[in-house]
């Protein structure tokens, strides 16, 4: 789950980090009031879950409160990569002397958090990694000890040579690590981490993603989810416990298992079709899940055919067939359904489907070709 910049900054402040001030507003009047409070010179930043906000015109500098309100008018309601801006963050401008980068994520290979810093901040860090990898300093953190003081200091010396600044940076890195762990983050980033003309080090942008698997035990963090940033289909899928990703095609896919679901989409493409979605109904054959899946898929008017691909292992095919029959009975589905069921109790499943006037095939290639043909 991605957090908005202002939410990430709140977590950072709560961890005791030096972060530049700022508050959110959702209308130009609110922005004007905040700008007046901060003395007029402010930055107005769109709060959406997307990179490239600046390039899209979602980040503007204002010299007085009137200009801030005008910027807010332009930014609020604008679309950045398909996401509508509902809130802006207003912060006083800073006297920036240098811009650095600090970030933490979990390293798959090392199987531990890795802290990365670079004195070349304020730009896309992936670009720095590609063009000047030596400018990025990485440290694998043993999760059992956490970030040790000498490690934080060592990394901070890569960012600043003035000991007064190094000391502040080390404190920020220590607290960044703590915020990362205490909030169950999968990524936490400060870009840029600035030093001011007055000799202060602080975070002026913040990015945090939370590990979805942590949310069950962190209700305060889970409550930060912005319902407006999620499509209706995504929210419904999440509530039903389905893994769902919307795509652009017209073949609706309903599969058990993530790997098989990906392979099914790939096969649709292989046979010249276009998948409308990724959807994993999981190991359960609960009819409610099948109903939710069908509702989500059919809500997309572009979908021309629904493809079921079920490999029954522990999940019994007859249970899934029962779920499909129930779901079809409860919903009014106007587009064709093609079904593939193989594995445990497939004969029984076929009988259940046949009684309801539905047919099933046994091979994945067959069902996908049929779906692509029906989708036209």
């Amino acid at each position, binding site marked *: 789950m991605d957090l908005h910049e202002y939410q990430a900054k709140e977590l950072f402040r709560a961890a005791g980090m030096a972060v530049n001030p700022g508050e959110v507003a959702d209308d130009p009047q609110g922005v004007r009031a905040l700008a007046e409070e901060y003395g007029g010179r402010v930055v107005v930043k769109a709060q959406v879950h997307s990179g490239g906000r600046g390039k899209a015109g979602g980040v503007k500098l204002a010299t007085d409160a009137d200009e801030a309100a005008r910027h807010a008018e332009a930014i609020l309601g604008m679309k950045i990569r398909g996401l509508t801006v509902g809130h802006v963050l207003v912060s006083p401008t800073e006297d920036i002397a240098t811009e650095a980068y600090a970030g933490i994520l*979990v390293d*798959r*290979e090392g*199987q*531990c*958090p890795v802290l990365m810093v670079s004195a070349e901040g304020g730009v896309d860090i*992936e670009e720095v990694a590609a063009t000047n990898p030596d400018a990025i300093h990485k440290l694998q953190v*043993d*999760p*059992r000890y956490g970030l040790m003081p000498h490690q934080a200091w060592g990394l901070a010396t890569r960012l600043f040579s003035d000991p007064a600044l190094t000391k502040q940076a080390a404190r920020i890195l220590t607290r960044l690590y703590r915020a990362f*762990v205490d909030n*169950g983050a*999968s990524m936490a980033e400060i870009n840029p981490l600035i030093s001011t003309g007055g000799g202060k080090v602080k975070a002026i942008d913040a990015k945090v993603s939370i*590990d*979805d*698997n*942590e949310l*069950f*035990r962190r209700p305060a963090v889970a409550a930060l989810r912005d319902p407006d940033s999620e499509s209706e289909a995504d929210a419904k899928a999440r509530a039903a416990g389905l*893994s769902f*990703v919307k*795509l652009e095609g017209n073949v609706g896919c309903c*599969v*058990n*298992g*993530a*790997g*098989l*679901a*990906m*392979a099914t*989409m*790939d*096969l*649709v*493409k*292989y046979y010249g079709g276009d*998948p409308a979605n*990724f959807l*994993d109904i999981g190991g359960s054959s609960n009819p409610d899940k099948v109903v939710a899946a069908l509702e989500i898929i059919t809500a997309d008017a572009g979908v021309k055919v629904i493809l079921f691909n079920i*490999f029954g*292992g*522990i999940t019994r095919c007859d249970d899934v067939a029962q779920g499909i029959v129930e779901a079809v009975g409860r919903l009014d589905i106007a587009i064709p359904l093609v079904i593939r069921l*193989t*594995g*445990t109790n497939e004969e029984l499943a076929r009988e259940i489907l046949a009684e309801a006037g539905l047919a099933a095939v046994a*091979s*994945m*290639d067959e069902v996908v070709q049929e779906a692509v043909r029906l989708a036209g």
Partner: protein
Amino acid sequence: MSIYVDETTRVIVQGITGRDGSFHTRQMAAYGTRVVAGVTPGKGGRSFALSGKEEVPVYDTVADAVAETGANASVIYVPPAFAASAIMEAADAGVGFIVCVTEGIPVLDMTRAHALARDRGCRVLGPNCPGIICPGKTTLGIIPGSIVTEGPVGLISRSGTLTYEAVHHLTRDGLGQTTCVGIGGDPLIGTSFVDCLAAFADDPDTEAVVMIGEIGGTAEQEAAAWVSANLDIPVVGFIAGRTAPPGTRMGHAGAIISGSSGTAAEKTRAFEDNGIKVAKRPAEIAVLARESLGR
């Protein structure tokens, strides 16, 4: 032969009294797995019926179960909130081979569990994996016994049902398996493709290997390099997720393309550059495997 486990492996089940644990324990026992005990904290002293005639004791701790039964492997079916702790308990009790089926374990929990398992010299399979099956010998996890058969192919996969799909084709085409290993769909897993490849390389009965990968991470690329440097039996590959959009998690926590890395195209290229034939459809996996074995 098989890798990692065989018919002599003595298995305990952590979470044996739970809904999933009890169901799969009976499935494993019916297949022939030597289930010697179960562990559920707070339910020690009870017994668990494997079938109408056979039962095993339930212990409060893994250490007790190991001391009493000499178990050397464990399968974990406990909920995500307690699963990392279950792995650490098994590692601490000296269980050498730990299969964790549980999906949805916090990644930071797993950083600590993997670190402890490494310190204790234990092998963890998973988490978020279907387990391991040695046809005709034993099964630890949830891979259905009905789809496998004995034969010369070793199979390694990050997925569950896609593995079943591939195995189903192999079995139907007369290509049995020495061992099928599901290494798991999480970003942090205890046993990698390379670990399994090295084990298959030491197994005289394995004459070909099938590797089923997916988007996310670089495990397939590392495996491909290892194959070309170390393995002299044929390898057939498949990569799921060619149509997956970047930056979006596809069901498995580990299945995500970050930036430009971890794409299906990159992995397919790594396979092909290192002499691994890549199937374009799941059904083609068995065809390529048969060709590579000259059958």
